[in-house]
């Protein structure tokens, strides 16, 4: 496959939320939600971003779109630096980058009809007004599998899956190139999930969209992504082509995460070996020293608690941040043999 050019390039991106205390609101610490991440998203591809709650994946998506201000680092979109741009400078770029939110119940204004929800961005960005906007709304509704007459209804008249389709139509209205989909199917029932996933894939083909697909469901991410990045407590620990990541994960956290997914097949369940991690995900306020995974890692050694591992490319396009892998020449540790550490 010839490599498409990078549409989004993220370098050393950081987002800290200050914690203040006392009547003077003294700055006492930071929640390091995103703490130095690097990756690229190629034009026309889907990059899956997975991680457990608190890993910083949602914050990463929001900072990339400039819905939250970065603490440091750089994000370029189509060659333009986004960090540091003022509101006015950002506005024309907002047409190019859109977001689909997780909760289709909370992300649609209950007092607006679906038609006006979809029309609003068209008018704000001066794309269409009046009858032309009306027509575009009808077209968008059809595009996402709804009926044109649905434009006059309110969000509460729709089921979860239909509301998410409205969210997709709103994002598409301005003709974006890049869409951040933040857990777009996790609030939906399984039978409806598949409808929305298929819709997102069809639209990507039709319009050549680029997706950053943020999710905690690793089966969904494998299905939809070309490449996958794994986050753990504010850092990306591994990134690779989808199949390489799922078939040959290098980082011990990726391995444990993949082995923890319940597989809906009683036969597979009995065959596979499971790596059960002990303990909980550490807090991003006071993350562990060195490698952030060392407190739960079955193969951690002295260096891991002292030195932050570098994000190294071990195979073409396959990067991971792990001292063990580095010291073993890019080999993945065999965790099924390692003794589990007791919390």
């Amino acid at each position, binding site marked *: 496959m010839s490599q498409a050019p990078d549409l989004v390039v993220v370098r050393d991106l950081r987002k800290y939320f200050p914690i203040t205390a006392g009547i003077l609101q003294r700055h006492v610490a930071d929640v390091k939600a995103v703490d130095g991440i690097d990756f690229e998203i190629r034009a026309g591809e889907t990059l899956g971003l997975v991680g*457990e709650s608190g890993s910083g994946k949602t914050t990463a998506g929001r900072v990339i779109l400039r819905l939250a201000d970065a603490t440091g680092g750089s994000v370029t979109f189509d060659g333009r630096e986004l960090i540091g741009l003022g509101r006015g400078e950002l506005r024309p770029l907002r047409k190019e980058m859109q977001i689909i939110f997780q909760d289709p119940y909370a992300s649609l204004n209950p007092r607006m009809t679906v038609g006006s929800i979809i029309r609003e961005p068209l008018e704000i960005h001066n794309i269409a007004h009046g009858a032309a906007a009306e027509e575009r709304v009808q077209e968008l509704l059809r595009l996402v599998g709804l009926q044109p007459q649905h434009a006059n209804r309110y969000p509460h008249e729709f089921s979860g899956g239909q509301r998410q389709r409205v969210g997709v139509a709103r994002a598409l209205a301005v003709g974006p190139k890049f869409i951040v989909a933040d857990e777009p199917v996790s609030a939906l029932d399984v039978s409806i999930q598949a409808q929305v996933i298929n819709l997102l894939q069809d639209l990507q083909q039709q319009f050549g969209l680029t997706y950053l697909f943020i999710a905690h469901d690793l*089966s969904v991410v494998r299905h939809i992504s070309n490449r996958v990045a794994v986050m753990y407590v504010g850092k990306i620990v591994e990134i690779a082509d989808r199949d390489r990541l799922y078939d040959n994960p290098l980082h011990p956290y990726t391995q444990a995460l993949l082995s923890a997914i319940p597989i809906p097949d009683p036969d597979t369940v009995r065959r596979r070996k499971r790596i059960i991690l002990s303990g909980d995900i550490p807090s991003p306020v006071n993350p562990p020293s060195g490698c952030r995974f060392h407190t739960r890692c079955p193969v951690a050694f002295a260096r891991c608690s002292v030195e932050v591992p570098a994000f190294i490319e071990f195979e073409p396009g396959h990067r991971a941040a792990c001292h063990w892998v580095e010291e073993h020449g890019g080999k993945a540790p065999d965790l099924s043999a390692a003794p589990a550490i007791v919390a």
Partner: protein
Amino acid sequence: MALLEVRNLKTTFKTEDGIVAAVNGLSFAVEPGSTLGIVGESGSGKSVTSLSIMRLLATNGRIESGEVLFKGEDLLLKSEAEMRKIRGRDIAMIFQDPMTSLNPVLTIGEQIAEATRLHLGLSNRDAMAKAVDMLRLVRIPAPEKRLKDYPHQFSGGMRQRVMIAMALSCDPAVLIADEPTTALDVTIQAQIIELMNEMQARLGSAIVLITHDLGVVAETCENVLVMYGGNMVEYGTARQIFDAPKMPYTMGLLESLPRLDQAGSRLVPIEGQPPNLLRMPPGCAFEPRCRYRMPICKEPVSLYDFGSGHLARCFLYDQRAEGQKTIPAENATLLPGTAVAPPQDARR
């Protein structure tokens, strides 16, 4: 005799828009030491089933008819005082959200000890000692110290373990777990599933696991009950359900899942939307979305028996549907008295 048997349970809710039959004639049984998975989407009636068994329905809910037999005795005939002795002692429950189901102003030690003091008559000191044992059992580090902590000092996975410790502290014969891992991350979910399997092996309790996650079911359950629109649409062993599903809804559910072991292919969704319980179709609840639907499906549909305990509610297996069938399907034995139609009063 089954340890817990539900017969023809019908639970309704009074709402502003009319009366909703959330569970409509459900029957099933659970044997000691086994795990039954109840799967279904939101609104299928799975949580209402568990709340009906425990008699913990909201005030607008009502058990219209049926029996809930625990060791042969009907729980629906018990007084509230008798129920209070059974809840937590004989039948315990784990809820989905461990934060809202723990009391925020009591230490978790007090909360675990409360159950054993009340139900087993333990002294304060013994109850606290038992609480330490239970916390150790669910692998909370430094249990003597954590006993004095409040729920907010625990992470989500730890709180769920505290809930399990509490639920198991009186060695209940039946444990009802309603989406016990849904709010948790996968690595934590794996810990909790392993813990529940271990606890069951140790105590021999029967578990009713309510979930929408077919992966969790495959990992934990011997038997599976699939619910749709307030009723059982399929029942069988996990093997039967996953390898040879009979009801098109079950087939659709399995096909619509992205599978780690079969990546890449296009997903096959179930078209349409989940049923509105206020406007249920007269026949099979799944008929409007079913790709194999036939004219006969608009009539009330019974359960069909495929032998060795595998049941499905679908006209595809009825000999009366010969000539209408859209796919080849064997004829199975109709179980008389199992046909259900939506109650007329559900429509206003």
